[in-house]
């Protein structure tokens, strides 16, 4: 009897084994089938810009100028967004748009806005951004502004759209400073990022040079020849208060703020040749930073505050060097070419931009600080005074066209290049301000 049981047991076990083997077989056969997914590799990218439709806002007549026009211009200037004409499509803010129709028109995104009378002479502006591909609303925002603020409002809306679609902060509300010479009159002007809306911060019969924004955007340091010699001043922009930063024997020039806004680097000739010095914001605590037998000038603080880049001819030709901000060993930075001046470090500290002489032409050149690879960004001949936008993507600089100074902008990726305003005078020495705090 025990015999029989074990026998049966044995068969049962065999059966179980077979069953398990079958299961395994199934698993083995089905595993490769289940994972037979296609993997498609895609190299590179093919689109240059995001198409956006931004028809006129309803009620634009309530303001002194077209808001949507400002938005469209701002965004188009970046080269990353492309404005799609609405054609016969109608978009009404507050009403769900026909996403498929807008998509069919070629717009991936749609901005709609409306302007209505508000309280106290203000107007209420509401604007919505849609993703027509996903048929979703990305945001709706509302602001109340004075009817004459169409530019500020347009820049503000452009910032919101750009941030949402590109994923980086927009520079449309930043300001730039530059010097215009008309006849014998010099003006230090402050304008919108696109050169429009310029307001003089200083007017003088003597040259004005080297405007430099404080990191908080509230002050400008500059050099003036009011007293028949170059003296560095600091002006607070919310008042007319001006203080003297450096007025030493000889020349005082090329101010540059430290990233924390507490100190300034500058070039002085008080001890002989031009050398780099550092002082506190009120001019106290002056300290000499470089000691060479050549000319050291155009100091520029690196964004991390650790180094000061400057131009020096100590090696025989003008090249860019850097020195620890608290003093120390000087290090040469540029090696390509025989003439490299006016260094500016990108906001992320990874790229250096300067003016390089290539075959007798002075051009904006970009250098990767890690790899030392250089690349000319412009093909003009008389570029000077490069200045990074706070987003690090665009560079403002002065160049010459038709025998006078004009301002131009080029993006570090070469996608964008445009000329600023058509002011009648000779425009030089631009400086791009920081993001508004």
């Amino acid at each position, binding site marked *: 009897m025990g015999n029989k049981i074990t026998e049966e047991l044995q068969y049962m076990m065999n059966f179980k084994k077979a069953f398990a083997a079958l299961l395994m077989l199934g698993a083995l056969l089905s595993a490769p089938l289940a994972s037979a997914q*296609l*993997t498609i590799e*895609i*190299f590179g990218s093919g689109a240059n810009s995001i198409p956006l439709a931004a028809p006129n806002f309803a009620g634009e007549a309530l303001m002194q100028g077209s808001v949507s026009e400002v938005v469209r211009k701002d965004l188009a200037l970046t080269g990353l967004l492309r404005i799609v004409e609405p054609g016969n499509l109608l978009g009404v803010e507050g009403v769900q748009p026909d996403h498929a129709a807008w998509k069919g028109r070629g717009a991936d995104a749609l901005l709609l806005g409306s302007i209505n009378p508000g309280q106290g002479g203000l107007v209420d502006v509401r604007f919505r951004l849609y993703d027509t591909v996903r048929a979703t609303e990305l945001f709706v925002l509302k602001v109340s*502004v004075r009817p004459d603020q169409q530019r500020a409002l347009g820049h503000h809306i452009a910032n919101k759209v750009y941030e949402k679609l590109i994923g980086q902060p927009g520079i449309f509300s930043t300001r730039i400073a530059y010097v215009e010479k008309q006849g014998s009159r010099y003006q230090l002007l402050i304008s919108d990022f696109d050169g429009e809306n310029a307001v003089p911060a200083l007017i003088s019969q003597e040259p004005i040079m080297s405007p430099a924004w404080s990191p908080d955007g509230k002050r400008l340091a500059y050099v003036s020849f009011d007293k028949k010699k170059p003296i560095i001043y600091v002006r607070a922009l919310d008042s007319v208060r001006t203080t003297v930063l450096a007025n030493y024997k000889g020349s005082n020039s090329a101010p540059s703020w430290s990233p924390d806004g507490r100190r300034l680097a500058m070039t002085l000739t008080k001890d002989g040749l031009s050398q780099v010095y550092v002082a506190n914001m009120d001019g106290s605590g002056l300290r000499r930073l470089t000691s060479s037998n050549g000319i050291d000038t155009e100091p520029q603080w690196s964004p991390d505050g650790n180094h000061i880049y400057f131009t020096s001819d100590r090696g025989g030709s003008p090249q860019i060097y850097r020195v620890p901000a608290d003093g120390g060993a000087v290090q040469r930075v540029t090696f390509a070419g025989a003439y490299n001046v006016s260094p500016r470090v990108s906001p992320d500290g990874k790229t250096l931009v300067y003016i390089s002489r290539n075959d007798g032409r002075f051009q904006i050149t970009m250098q990767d600080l890690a790899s030392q690879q250089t690349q000319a960004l412009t093909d003009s001949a008389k570029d000077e005074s490069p200045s990074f936008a706070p987003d690090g993507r665009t560079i403002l600089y002065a160049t010459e066209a038709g025998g006078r100074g004009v301002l131009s902008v080029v993006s570090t990726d*070469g996608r964008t290049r445009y000329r600023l305003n058509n002011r009648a005078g000779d425009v*030089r020495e631009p400086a791009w301000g920081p993001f508004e705090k």
Partner: protein
Amino acid sequence: MEFTLQRPEPGKWGAAVFSLLMHGLLVAVLFYGVQWQSRPPAAVSVELVRSLPPASMPETPAPPVKEVVPPKPVEVKPVEVKPAPVIKPDIAIKEPEKKKPEKKKEEPKPVPPVAQSKPVTKPAEKPPEKAPPMSRMEQMLANEAAKAGAVNNQNRLNQAAADARAKQDALNAAASLGSATGDWMGQIAQKVKSNLMRPPGASGNPVVEFKVELLPSGEIMGEPKLNKSSGNSSLDEAVRRAILKSSPLPKPTKGEVFQRELILKFHPLADGE
């Protein structure tokens, strides 16, 4: 007790045969399993089909969109237009390296002839003293620079060779696939790539991988699933946008090639030229 130890084993031969059978079966299974798995990895590079016409457009627009993003509440702002708070990018933003600036000619703007605006004669310093004809120092520096350039070129050449090899591999792999599958994959790659915009600030050689589910019409079902992030949310988002914009994806010429699930692996900053 003793019986259990020395009991006769009547099923012994049957068991042995069965066991042999099972082993044989197992070997067979392994054999076919391996056959299955030795199928070359499905990969194709978009260059293969660069010249193909863009995928046919769908007859039926309006992809099914399930996702509902709750609209942000209306933000009431004070009178002054305040600047937007600075959005911190998720990663450190590097400047893109290497690309050439567009060789666009600075269009000779018709500048209104302005009388008498002489360039400002710059007082005081600024270093631009006239550079003397190549001094010895300069020559040495120039040599140095030339050498550095040569090294860079060599590196680039090596890199290019490696890239070419990788592409050749992908090509071979694709060629060994059924051509219908290869064509289909190429068309998909072409379409999605044409809709991808490389966001500013991306650098290095990031890889982004999405999984998508397709309807037989080629339409993408729901949201693409992020399998592998590049670490740069703007770049991930740009890729997602490109995928969604490409819906419906092209259909294969042979229906049996169709796969419901696809892995899309992007190398957005790789040279796709």
